[in-house]
């Protein structure tokens, strides 16, 4: 989906993957994205609730949202270059 600011929203499903694989998948996906793009991530490893925010802080991407819903952990990350 392309937005009015030329940003796009992408999805990443890491369900059933155990840490650190969800973080690796996020890291690798974000390499392909542009500044301002949004990445929605769905995980099932509860460790991601710590690890994905930590990865975002270290790499200075913006974690806009994180929540738990029906055994799933959902994240919305804005890419910052």
């Amino acid at each position, binding site marked *: 989906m392309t937005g009015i600011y030329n940003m796009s929203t992408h999805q990443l499903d890491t369900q059933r993957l*155990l840490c650190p694989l969800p973080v690796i998948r996020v890291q690798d996906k974000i390499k392909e994205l542009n500044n301002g793009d949004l990445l929605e991530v769905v995980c099932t490893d*509860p460790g991601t609730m710590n690890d994905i925010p930590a990865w975002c802080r270290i790499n200075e991407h913006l974690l806009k949202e994180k929540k738990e819903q029906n055994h799933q952990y959902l994240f919305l990350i804005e890419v910052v270059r």
Partner: protein
Amino acid sequence: MTQKKAVSLISGGLDSLLATKVIQEQGIHVEGINFFTGFCVEGHTHAIRKKDKQKQKRNNALWVAEQLNIKLHIVDIVEEYKSIVMNPKHGYGAHLNPCLDCKIFMVKKAHEWIKENNFDFIITGEVIGQRPKSQRKETMPVISGKSGAGDLLLRPLCAKNLPATRPELENWVDREKLYDFSGRSRKPQMSLAEQFELEDYAQPAGGCCFLTDENYASKLSDLWKFRGNREYELDDIILLKIGRHIRPKPNFKVIVSREEGETRFLEGYKKQFIYLHSISHKGPLTLIDGDEISDEDLLLAAQITARFSQGRTADQVTVEIIDKKQQSKEVTVKPCHPNDILNDWYL
């Protein structure tokens, strides 16, 4: 002089944290690299088991990177690492841990990384004598040499016990401000941590790799023995961390979930394995891993499943068996008596 850049192998433990901090203190730009082999101890059991859900879980490498305020590059080496585990040139340690080959491989990958990313040298938290297999005076030059890193590999915690490396010879770092730690004692590291005012750090018992764990290595040996080769996939090595593994016959083993979280996790494997669950009583999910499974084998697996269900003392338990084509059948069995499941069957 332009600022020099180093990549540090970050395991998540204290030594790599300190080694990185020592080099940062000398004005070097450091970034971390961490390798995921599939055997890394990352609290997977806790992540899966419901009863552990409230336990705080963190990736120690990420945590260390955050404490050091450095970027961390996590690299998936699961596929490439298989050859190291299956055929280590320098052999195994006490269990199935190919520590020396592993260290050579990781430094080699780090060396490739610095060339691709225009970094100047590599640092590790190795200490002479710290580990019986890979961290010995004789193995240090083997790692530098066989990895291809040569004198671009600096070990800040024991550098003074080793010949000077290029970062020292060219005064990128001050050798006098490096250390001469040796031996298995952790006191020098703890003292240095105190100097850096580091109070919270991981102290993994037995290292950070499942291959050093006797029970895990025993299950992996069993997998290799009964498959007739040492090939494995990531799912194989993850499943070895989950459930009870019981091999009643050479041609198959069962993996029986121990609680709700494990049941939910094993449900993700329903298309890859024959699976069973009790329908007359609450109970576990059981996967059958094997070949040429006979009706007799299925009945035995059903009896084992019933044994770990809430119908364990009932006269009869009804178990549903679903094959890989998702065709289902029900059998009614008497649960195994605990003595029927021989100690030798438990992996």
